[in-house]
């Protein structure tokens, strides 16, 4: 039976996210926990589900084990359907060729056959690096309305930051006339979000010809978009105005978590019309003990708080023992904070155990990080900006 999908999404989830240091030493960046009960990849996957996109290929490469088991059948995002669903796509050997994904465009190129089987009209390219809520259906409607070959999602960044981004210079109609990668003197402040809608035939043709060019880096931003512009294809920009956070560094990941603690958070995760779905761990409600103190924090099911938690994010099944203080911190799932330990301006990764009286981070300065499964000795002191773990 030949299928006809309007739109298939391809999610690039193979990046290491090396600027996250110890946090991505054992897991791919999209699998990094965020906001108490989510992982970064929950955002693009939930956006797909909420946008009515039911077929998603997830391209993995770096340390994919945790990501694979997290995605599983795709049931948490309603992506376990027989007419589509979620597919994890690692690099595979093809006869004598067989190779790793060389770049973003090459990763899609290597999976053209996967897309082909759904015979889609459009292909949505996503990355697993950002926290945002986005209705891809609106973007797709924009693409269709403007009869574009490629639509690039853009957001306006402050002019002083513009030179750090790939910028889309457009005419009055929103048609892209020039693409500049991190220019010294920016002509616009429309930064590409790395979210693209391609008309399928165009994507297939340009990826195939790009692959034949030995000099190409096989990258959407560096190669595909400039080539399409030069060929006179119709490229349009689609403006996105919502919250959008790159969580590519320790600082930005911590910041994005702290954003959730403001009285009116810039991203509403309590939106019942646009839920962010996550794989559930099946924990009981969290317990605020008789002597515990919790202020201005997010606390997830399974937590037990016997100490003091101020302005922090506690993920599922975190234990904070008596006398411990957790302030301005992000504690990832299953971490245990020992008696009288003090955690300030820090990220404690999954399953870490902080010994009694240990001091992690400082009131000011850079964020301290304890890596996953790390056991911190009682009384240990980890200074601001330091990282500890394997």
């Amino acid at each position, binding site marked *: 039976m030949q299928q006809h999908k309007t739109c298939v999404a391809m999610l690039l989830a193979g990046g290491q996210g090396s600027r996250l240091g110890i946090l991505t030493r054992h897991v791919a960046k999209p699998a990094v926990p965020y*906001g*108490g*009960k989510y992982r970064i990849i929950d955002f693009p996957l939930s956006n797909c589900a909420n946008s009515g996109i039911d077929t998603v290929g997830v391209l993995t490469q770096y340390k994919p084990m945790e990501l694979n088991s997290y995605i599983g059948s795709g*049931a*948490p995002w309603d992506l376990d359907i027989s007419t589509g669903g979620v597919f994890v796509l690692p690099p595979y050997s093809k006869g004598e060729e067989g190779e790793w994904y060389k770049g973003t465009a090459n990763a899609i190129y290597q999976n053209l056959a996967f897309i082909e089987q759904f015979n889609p009209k459009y292909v949505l390219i996503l990355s697993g690096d950002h926290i945002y809520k986005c209705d891809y259906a609106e973007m797709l409607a924009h693409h269709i309305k403007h009869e574009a070959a490629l639509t690039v999602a853009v957001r306006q960044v402050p002019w002083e930051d513009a030179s750090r981004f790939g910028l889309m210079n457009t005419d009055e109609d929103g048609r892209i006339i020039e693409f500049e990668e991190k220019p010294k003197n920016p002509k616009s402040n429309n930064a590409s979000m790395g979210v693209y809608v391609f008309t399928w035939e165009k994507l297939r043709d340009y990826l195939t010809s790009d692959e034949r060019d030995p000099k190409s880096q096989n990258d959407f931003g560096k190669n595909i978009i400039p080539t399409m512009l030069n060929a006179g294809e119709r490229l349009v920009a689609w403006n996105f105005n919502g919250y959008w956070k790159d969580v590519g560094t320790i600082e930005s990941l911590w910041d994005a978590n702290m954003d959730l603690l403001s*009285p009116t958070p810039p991203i509403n*995760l*309590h939106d019942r019309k646009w*839920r*962010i*779905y*996550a794989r*559930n*761990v*099946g*924990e*009981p*409600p*969290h*317990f*605020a*003990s*008789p*002597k*515990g103190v*919790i*202020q*201005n*924090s*997010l*606390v*997830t*099911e399974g937590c037990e708080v016997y100490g003091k938690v101020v302005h922090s*994010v*506690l*993920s599922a099944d975190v234990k904070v023992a008596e006398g411990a203080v957790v302030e301005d911190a992000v504690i990832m799932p299953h971490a245990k904070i020992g008696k009288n330990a003090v955690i300030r301006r820090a990220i404690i990764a999954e399953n870490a155990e902080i010994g009694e009286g240990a001091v992690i981070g400082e009131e000011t300065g850079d964020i301290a990080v304890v890596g996953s499964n790390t056991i911190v000795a009682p009384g240990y002191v980890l200074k601001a900006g330091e990282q500890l773990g394997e």
Partner: protein
Amino acid sequence: MKQNIVGLIYTGERVDELQELTRYRNTAALPMVGRYRLIDFTLANMIHSGIKNIGIIMQKNYHSLMDHLGSGREWNLHGKRSGLTILPPFMSRENVGVYDGLLDALHNNMNFMRRSVERNIVVTDSNVLYQVDFRDMMNHHLDNKADITLLYTKDRNVRRNARGRYLQVEKDQVTKLEIDPTIPHFENTYVGAFIIRRELLIDLVDRAVASGQHHSSREMIAQMVSERIYRIGAFECPGRVWMIDSVESYYQCNMDFLNDKLRAQAFRDDKPVWTKLRDEMPARYMGDSLVTNTLVADGCLIEGTVENSILFRGVVVKPGAVIRNSIIMQDAVISRNAEVENCILDKQTTLREDVRLIAPRSYPLVVPKNLTI
């Protein structure tokens, strides 16, 4: 590992003492401990005992239970070789759709028992909360060479005057049975679960119904005890047992989960209790929130004071609001400066600003679903 046991849960208990709590739902669907329904604990017992096929006999007001269970996916009971079978009441020549107790319900669901392939069956009530490994009970049943084995507890918490079934147990054998005694003589209370060879149960139900006199399982078991034909084993349920048969016992059971030890009995890392998911964000503590000795589910927004209470998913506590010794169910809203003490607020109730709702400790007040005060 797959066990040779099929599970059957009877949800037809009529418990008038639960007042408004069971007006629109059956006992099995009672919201428990912040995010569960009572049946989740029974299902967890079965699932963690390796039971893969479970039938649920529905009786009345079963809409919320059906909604809760869905396809059984959250319990991993949606496979080809495993699954949940919902057995709603139906009309037949002998049956008007209302079961007169467990035996009648079993009789009307013989097809489920006949169609099952497992050698043994465990049949449970749904108004009791406990933790047991039915594999241990099965092994005891076999070692004891029993025909039927009843689950019992010595927990005094479940004793009731003029109500309940009490067992005299000698050498792991039930030798006497008391039904609804004014004052129970035996220290062992039947917990409402038994294991039996499936074909023997079919035979017993057939014969009991054919004799035309027996419509309750109480009488069936009483007859078995008095006839002395069968060997009736007894297996003691470890740990705490809660019988949910009144507003007070419902309230106390929930409050008991504020105790670290009792909570640890029910929620073990290796034996999660599954339930229907709601994909709520974590609970948010804001402003001058002050929360002590309280269980809080995801999706809550707390800006007020909460003591010795249980907050279900999506509860909103506005600034200045005070909640003490109360159970607040899903999506209830406690407005500014409202105060609630010793109450059970059902789902989607709203307390308006400055409203004070204070019940005596000994008699928790139930506020029905969707009510605004």
